[in-house]
């Protein structure tokens, strides 16, 4: 709006005689205004309520693909660990929602607005609460940095993202264009995020776990465990396809962590509480 006014006032203030617009001036002006509008739209961000609504739709799709594990004590436990981690971040008051999916696949998912899910198959390969915290904190980081929203903006539905940001699509009320965005958001799980986003989530995840008082080496320990699973195991196929190689992730963390997190190494991993909580069914 402001830029539109600016261009209009610029044209008005120019001495008319200086330009031979040849009758095409108006068309060019319209074009210029449209370009400016487009740039504005592309840069607009969806609001936090819109982000939460969109994320809820994506989370609902995920739960359509794999059900929630019917184990209330474990669901509650994972929510406690996750919420405590989220409190250490720059977005402590999102409606954070964590869950364990009843699936043997080894994977974890985040959706915009504070939704984080891990599979039972991944949980089964963890040894303590610090490892759980490391994985949840990696997913929390995707939400903090809005990685999925960025992927949507860059993808085939970027115009719909602009429309959502500009309130041309309401995030509630069943607009079919919103369902298209939700589908596109779900498809990101099949395609994967940007590699750099995964590295960033690793870097942030170990710090969030350390802030929360956990042994920061939980996340690298899980990644190392996954390295020991036969790479042909179909339970890992999608996780491997959508993430950078485990060896690369580990060596990047190794260099950074030994420099900066050395004084957080003695923090607890709460193996006992983890075992007790998971056996409580």
């Amino acid at each position, binding site marked *: 709006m402001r830029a539109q006014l600016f261009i209009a006032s610029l044209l008005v203030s120019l001495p008319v005689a200086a330009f031979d617009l040849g009758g095409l001036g108006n068309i060019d002006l319209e074009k210029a205004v449209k370009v400016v509008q487009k740039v504005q739209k592309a840069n607009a961000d969806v609001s936090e309520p819109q982000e939460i609504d969109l994320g809820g739709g994506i989370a609902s799709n995920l739960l359509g693909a794999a059900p929630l594990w019917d184990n209330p004590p474990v*669901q509650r436990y994972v929510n406690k660990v996750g*919420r405590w981690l989220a409190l250490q971040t720059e977005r402590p008051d999102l409606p954070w929602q964590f869950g364990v999916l009843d699936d043997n696949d080894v994977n974890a998912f985040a959706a915009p607005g504070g939704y984080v899910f891990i599979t039972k198959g991944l*949980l089964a390969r963890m040894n303590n609460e610090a490892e759980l915290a490391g994985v949840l904190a990696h997913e929390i980081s995707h939400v903090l940095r809005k990685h999925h929203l960025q992927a949507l903006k860059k993808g085939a539905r970027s115009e719909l993202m602009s429309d959502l940001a500009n309130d041309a699509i309401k995030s509630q009320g069943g607009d079919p264009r919103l369902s298209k965005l939700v589908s596109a958001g779900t498809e990101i799980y099949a395609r994967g995020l940007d590699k750099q986003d995964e590295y960033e989530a690793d870097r942030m995840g170990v710090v969030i776990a350390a802030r929360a008082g956990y042994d920061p080496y939980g996340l690298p320990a899980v990644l*190392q465990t996954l390295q020991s699973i036969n790479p042909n195991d179909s339970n890992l196929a999608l996780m491997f396809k959508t993430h950078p190689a485990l060896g690369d992730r580990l060596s990047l963390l190794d*260099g950074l962590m030994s420099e900066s997190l050395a004084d957080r190494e003695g923090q607890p991993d709460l193996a006992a509480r983890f075992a007790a909580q998971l056996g409580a069914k």
Partner: protein
Amino acid sequence: MMKRLSLSLLLLVASSAWAGDAAYTIRATELKAKPYGDAQTLRSLPPRTKVEVLKRQSSWTQVKAGTTSGWVKMLSLQLEASATGRRSDNGLSALFNVAATGRGGSTVTTGVRGLSEEQLKNAQPNPQALRAAKKYAVSRSEAERFAEEGQLQSHDVDYLSGGR
């Protein structure tokens, strides 16, 4: 009483999770007497030395190299992929009913539900399940109480920058 018993049983299982895994060094590594950088060096291990994993403690892993036991940096190791497609059991997978036989690479995932690429692309919303999930959400004060119970103390730690 019952709960106590099952707890200690599980603890036993869980704490042995890393034990017995085969691993090898991915670079030249010092085998230390204790899990500290300035601890006595027992041996220098060249790259690709085979070791047996005993346990992990933060950034250190206790291993047995030949007849010598000691500590190496965890990330100087790579665990061997186990022949069955699964690492040694952490004891919880049986509890969770996770397929113990290890699905081979040839298994084709079929059916409507599941987390394969195709299934995610065709996922249908389940708002009911989402509402059910919300029941388990935890408030700020509950989370703080939980942290206190575990004696978890929060600290200021800056995010790590760069990397690549």
